[in-house]
C-alpha cells in the first residue's frame, strides 16, 4: 500500500565534547509496494538510526525520504502514516493488553465489535490470546514484545516499521510465528521494514535485505542473492549459519594448466584447485592473474563429503568436530592445514579423527579480491561470468 524511497539518507551524531559520529552514510534504496525489507547488521551499523529517521524520531542530517513519491523527512511522525513496534515495547502500563493492542483502532473510532475481532485475530496469530486481560507489568519480556508487535500489526498501516521485533521470543515459537507473521504481512499487502541483528530472522522474513556495516549499505538484495552472490567478503561472512568458509588463494600456472593454490593459516601452500573454462584463460580474457592474492569462499553445505568432483580430485580431510543437530550435521574438517565447516542433511556416520574424501565443486567456489573484499566471481566453472 505504500512505496518508500531513501535518497542518500545520512545521519551524523554530534555528541558534546566528542568526535562526530557518522551513523548512516548516504544510504539509498527503494522499497516496493507490499515488500518486506530487513535492515540487517551488527550493533552500531546504523540500521536503527535509519529506521528512526524513516519513522520521524530522528532528524536526517542529509538526504530525502519519500513515501509514495511524497517527501516526508520534514514531517512529524504522526503525519507520516506509519505503524511502529519499538525495541523497548513501550506499552501503556495502565491499560490491559487488549486495550494496548486496540488503542489505535479506538482512536480511529472503529466499532467495538470490529476492534474485538481484529484484536482476537492478531492475538491468536502471536499466541497471546490467553493473556489479553492482563497488564504489561505482569507478563514476561517475550509476551510484552509480542504485544508490542500486535499493536503495530493490527493497524495494517501502509508502512510498518518493526525494531528488533522478535529478539526476546522463546526459541520454540520462533519458526511458527515468523511463518504466521510473514503470511499476515503478505496477505494484507503491508509494506514493512524491520531491523534485526539476527541474519536467520532477516532471511526468514524478508523479500530483500539491506546489509549494513558502519553506516554503509553493503548490499541490498533478496536472501538467495546474498547467499549465492554476496557483493563482498563482509556480506559473505556475515550471512549464513554456519557462515561461508573463506581461505586465501593464489593463481598460478604450472604444467600448462592454471591452478588456484589454496594457502593455509600460516600462508603455506595447502592444496590446489584445477581451473577450467574461462577462469583458466589469460587475465585479459577474464582469467585470474597469476601471483595475485585472492580470497576463496565456499558455503558449508556445498562441500561434497565422501565424493570427488572435477578440479579437486583426491582431497581427504580429517574430521576434527562432528555436531549432529537432528536434521543436519555440522562437520569441522581439517584439509591440509585449512579449517572448513561442512553441513550435510541428517546424520553423517563419521567419527571424530577419521579421514574422509572431500570435494570442492568449481561451481560452488566464490572468488573475492583480497585487498578490497569485493566479489569477483561466483562459481569458477566453464559457464561462469564475472560477479
Amino acid at each position, binding site marked *: 500500500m505504500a512505496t518508500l524511497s531513501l535518497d542518500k539518507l545520512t545521519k551524523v551524531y554530534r555528541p558534546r565534547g566528542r568526535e562526530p559520529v557518522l551513523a548512516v552514510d548516504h544510504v539509498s534504496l527503494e522499497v516496493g509496494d507490499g515488500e518486506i525489507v530487513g535492515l540487517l547488521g551488527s550493533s552500531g551499523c546504523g540500521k536503527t538510526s535509519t529506521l528512526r529517521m524513516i519513522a*520521524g*524520531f*530522528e*532528524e536526517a542530517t542529509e538526504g530525502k525520504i519519500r513515501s509514495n513519491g511524497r517527501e516526508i523527512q520534514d*514531517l*512529524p*511522525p504522526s503525519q507520516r502514516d506509519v505503524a511502529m513496534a519499538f525495541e523497548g515495547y513501550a506499552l501503556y502500563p495502565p491499560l490491559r493488553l487488549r486495550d494496548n493492542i486496540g488503542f489505535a483502532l479506538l482512536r480511529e473510532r472503529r466499532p467495538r465489535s470490529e476492534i474485538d475481532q481484529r484484536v482476537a485475530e492478531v492475538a491468536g496469530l502471536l499466541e497471546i490470546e490467553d493473556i489479553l486481560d492482563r497488564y504489561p507489568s505482569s507478563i514476561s519480556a517475550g509476551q510484552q514484545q509480542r504485544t508490542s508487535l500486535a499493536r503495530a500489526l493490527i493497524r495494517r498501516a501502509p508502512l510498518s516499521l518493526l525494531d528488533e521485533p522478535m529478539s526476546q521470543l522463546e526459541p520454540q515459537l520462533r519458526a511458527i510465528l515468523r511463518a504466521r507473521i510473514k503470511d499476515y504481512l503478505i496477505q494484507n499487502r503491508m509494506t514493512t521494514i524491520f531491523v534485526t541483528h539476527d541474519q536467520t530472522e532477516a532471511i526468514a522474513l524478508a523479500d530483500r535485505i539491506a546489509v549494513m556495516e558502519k553506516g554503509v549499505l553493503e548490499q541490498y538484495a533478496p536472501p538467495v542473492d546474498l547467499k549465492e552472490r554476496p557483493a563482498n567478503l563482509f556480506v559473505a561472512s556475515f550471512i549464513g549459519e554456519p557462515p561461508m568458509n573463506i581461505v586465501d588463494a593464489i593463481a598460478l600456472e604450472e604444467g600448462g594448466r592454471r591452478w588456484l593454490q589454496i594457502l593455509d593459516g600460516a600462508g603455506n601452500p595447502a592444496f590446489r584447485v584445477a581451473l577450467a573454462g574461462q577462469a583458466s584463460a589469460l587475465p585479459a580474457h577474464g582469467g585470474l592473474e597469476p601471483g595475485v592474492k585472492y580470497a576463496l569462499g565456499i558455503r558449508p553445505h556445498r562441500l561434497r563429503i565422501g565424493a570427488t568432483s572435477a578440479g579437486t580430485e583426491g582431497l581427504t580431510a580429517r574430521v576434527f568436530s562432528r555436531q549432529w543437530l537432528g536434521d543436519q550435521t555440522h562437520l569441522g574438517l581439517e584439509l591440509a592445514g585449512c579449517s572448513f565447516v561442512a553441513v550435510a542433511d541428517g546424520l553423517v556416520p563419521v567419527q571424530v579423527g577419521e579421514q574422509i574424501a572431500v570435494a570442492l565443486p568449481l561451481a560452488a567456489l566464490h572468488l573475492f579480491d583480497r585487498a578490497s573484499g569485493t566479489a569477483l566471481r561466483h562459481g569458477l566453472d566453464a559457464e561462469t561470468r564475472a560477479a
Partner: protein
Amino acid sequence: MSMRKTNPIARALRALALLLVGLFFLFPIFWVLLMSFQTNQDILRIPPSLFFSPTLENFYAIISGKLVTSAGTLEVPFMGNLLNSVILSTASVAVSLLFGVPAAYAFARFRFRLGEDIAFTLLSFRFAPPLLVVLPLALYFQDLGLNNSYLGLVWVYQLISLPLILWIVRGYFEDMSPDIEHAFRIDGHSWFATFMKVSIPLARPGIAAAALLAFIFCWNNFIFALILASADKQPVTVGALAFVTASGIQYGQIAASIVLSIIPTLALALYAQRYLVEGLSLGAVKG
C-alpha cells in the same frame, strides 16, 4: 516529538531561567564571601554596596586568635575550634566506616531474621530530631563522665554518620553483582579475602560518596556539640557563637570563620569527586 532546529528564543529563555536559579542559590555564599573582606561598618551600611575597600583584618583576627574591639581584646579560639571539627568529623567517619561497611555488606548479602527490621531501625535514626534526645543524653553523659570528651562526641556523632554510611553503601553492595564475589570464592579464596580484595575495592566509589556526605553532616552538626561539649572541645559550628560579643555582633569575623570552615569540606569534595565519577560501569560484568 519532532526534531526541529531548537527555537533560539526558547534557548535564550532557558539560559536566563537557569541563570536566575543559580544566582538565587549561590547569592548567600557570594555575599558571605564579600562580608568576610569588609569591616563591620561596611557590612551594616544602608544601603548595602558592592563597592568597598577590602580588608584582611577579619581573617587576621580569627587566625591569630585575638579580636580587638571597642570593649577590649578578646581571645578567639577559632583555630582550636577548627581543629576540633577536623578531629571529630574524621574520627566519627572512620568509626562509622569500620562498623558500617561490614554491616552494610551483611545487610546486602545475607538474609537473616529481622534483618530488614534492624536495618530500618538503624536508618530511622536519621529522622529522629536531635533535640528530642540531646537533653537526656546530656544527663547520661554527666553520669558516665563522657561530658566534654572526644570519645563521647564521636560516639554520639554515630547517630549522624552511621545511618548514612549504612544506607548508601548497602545500596551500592546490592547493585554489585554477587557473581564476581562468587567467582573469587570459587577460585579458592576465603570469605574474608573476598571481602577485602573484591567487595571493598569495587564499592570504593560508594564508600567514598558515603564517607564524604557523612563528613559534611558531622562537620555541620550544631546541637550535639552545643550541649555536650564545652569550650575546649567545641567545633566551628558552635565556635561561631563567640562572635556574638558584648560590644555587638562581629559579622565580619562570623563571615570569615564561615569562609574558613567551608574550605576543608570543599577541598575534600573536590578530591573525592574522582572516585564518585568512577561508578559501576567498570565493564567486568555484561549488562
